[in-house]
């Protein structure tokens, strides 16, 4: 699905300034086979998306659906096999040297595991000082210290001077994630990629982290990509939600629309699986979880056929085109 097709359905943010555009991106990983007969996993198939300033797009889907691959590609860890990624109009895949370094400071990531993303042998001050010295050489020693204190204060680690000397093991998971956010903000990014930033945190601190990300998004007009399998937090933090299945975008729209009027059978399955205290579990079981199909360069049709209740012959042959099913709401299914 190209960006133009996606735009035609209207399921794309128009307010705000476009920062990143991803157009018809495929990402292949070679799994094995021989030189002439390679087995190629297609982790993303024709994914198009747009990140605009001051707004968040949530990418939801099960493990293995390609969410993290998407973020890594935007962080330029991988280059797309096909398709283009542009950053403020420039082709990201052509960046190298100094331009790439600047791109990497403009696009910052916050990872899932706050225990693994901080160096246990270094102080919190060190984690903030290094990016400041590397990416903002214009700052004097005194200005660096002031900036570090301001960042810690901004992410709610107060009194800030106390935290500079501490090491990661002295902080709780939520506090560590705040340090990771402060570090990402230190280089004044325009894009924030948050890969499951709250899934390893305790329930009571999740909201605090999401609220902090929300404040940063609005105050600094960050374009945010929020990756999660928790559709309720996606709805809470992100204005728009895109649903990914086996590397294909299958539904996209405003988060309220997606959670309250899901159209694709996969989105419906995801929503139905979310714990809902307002009902009791049925004992007439229908088994829903099936492995996501291994999508290769040769695969055809809709990837959801193996689990879809509406499947017909056409589904096995052709991947449906995006259709508009409401204001800014698109879905890819033959049976809408």
């Amino acid at each position: 699905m190209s960006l133009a097709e996606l735009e035609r359905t209207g399921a794309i943010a128009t307010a705000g300034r476009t920062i990143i555009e991803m157009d018809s991106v495929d990402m292949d990983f070679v799994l094995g086979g021989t030189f002439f007969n390679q087995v190629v996993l297609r982790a993303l198939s024709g994914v198009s998306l747009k990140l605009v300033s001051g707004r968040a797009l949530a990418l939801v889907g099960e493990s293995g659906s390609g969410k993290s691959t998407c973020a890594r590609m935007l962080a330029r860890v991988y280059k797309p096999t096909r398709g283009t990624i542009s950053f403020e109009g420039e082709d990201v895949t052509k960046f190298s040297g100094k331009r790439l370094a600047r791109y990497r400071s403009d696009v910052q990531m916050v990872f899932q595991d706050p225990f693994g993303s901080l160096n246990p042998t270094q102080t919190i001050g060190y984690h903030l000082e290094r990016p400041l010295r590397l990416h903002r050489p214009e700052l004097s020693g005194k200005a660096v210290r002031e900036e570090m204190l301001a960042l810690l204060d901004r992410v709610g680690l107060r009194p800030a001077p106390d935290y500079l000397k501490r090491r990661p093991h002295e902080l709780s998971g939520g506090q560590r994630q705040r340090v990771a956010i402060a570090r990402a903000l230190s280089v004044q990014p325009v894009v924030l990629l948050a890969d499951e930033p709250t899934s390893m945190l305790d329930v009571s601190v999740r909201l605090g982290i999401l609220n902090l990300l929300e404040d940063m998004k609005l105050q600094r007009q960050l374009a945010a990509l929020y990756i999660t399998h928790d559709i309720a937090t996606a709805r809470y933090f992100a204005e728009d939600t895109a649903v990914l299945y086996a590397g294909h975008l299958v539904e996209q729209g405003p988060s309220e629309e997606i959670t309250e009027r899901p159209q694709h059978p996969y989105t419906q399955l995801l929503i139905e699986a979310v714990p809902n205290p307002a009902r009791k579990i049925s004992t007439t079981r229908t088994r829903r979880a099936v492995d996501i199909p291994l999508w290769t360069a040769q695969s055809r049709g809709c990837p959801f056929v193996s689990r879809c209740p509406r499947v017909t012959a056409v589904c096995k042959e052709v991947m449906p085109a995006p259709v508009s099913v409401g204001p800014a709401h698109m879905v890819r299914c033959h049976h809408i």
Partner: protein
Amino acid sequence: MSSDRVLLEVRNLTVDYVGDNSIARAVNGIDFDIREGEAFGLAGESGCGKSTVAFALARLTRLPGLVSGGSVRFQGEEVLSFEKARLKAYRWREVSFVFQSAMNALNPVIPVSEQIMDVIETHNPELGQKGARARAVEMFELVGIPPQRLDDYPHQFSGGMRQRICIAIALALNPRLIIMDEPTTALDVVVQRDIIEQIVELKSRLGFSVLFITHDLGLMIEFCDRIGVMYSGELVEVAPATSILTNPQHPYTRALGSSFPPLTGPRLRLEGIAGSPPDLRALPKGCRFSPRCPHAMAVCGETAPELRFYPQHESEAACHLLN
């Protein structure tokens, strides 16, 4: 589904963690019952003592943990005074365990068949190897895994299947109580839904009780009959699952309930619970929740409220506001 007959009776259970020069009381004299066929949930933040309670019930507490007081009666017998042989029968035959991380609960270098059969043969030597294998096949069918895969190694299964295998092992001896400590936390929502529905179905078929521990209050309310909410080593509320949702009595229960963004309605900002739980070595005076409580009064900082039954709400709660 649950009857009124009590299966497990916990009274004044106290567990300490002993340090070099300090003692942290992780569980401070809690009382609750688990009835036959009932799913009882323990909810609370990390570090509130829910897993410590679970370990104490199965007599799995190890130093520096120490069960320093109280009683745990299983069908009338005092579990805390079981000697070795009685304990061996109690563990797994009467009470079994499903842990959070199925990745770590199975031995990666041994086929899963041996791991199931090991349990069966140890407790039922009269079955022999053939009988144990037949039982293992039966257990695989029960949790919906093709028995042809019995001799596979753990890494050949997905996370959800591994958790099913752990459930099969827990069910192998037909226990009366299964303690499930965050059984689905590491799994995807869709897989979680499958496994929870399977547990509900097996529970209604086989009639065992469940002690269910999770931090996901939504899932707990959906699954459990009754729920105990723990805060800093104490039970602050025990009530039917539906009351926890619709009529929470304790301010902590209410705060915990509003920490989850809803799936419907307008997108509003939620505040959750400000602050963090107290350090067990430096507890506040009076009610342990009072420093974080939006409704704290003078008395809350002085005396600790006791867990009392409020018949009009069908719930037990420990809060001065209710008096």
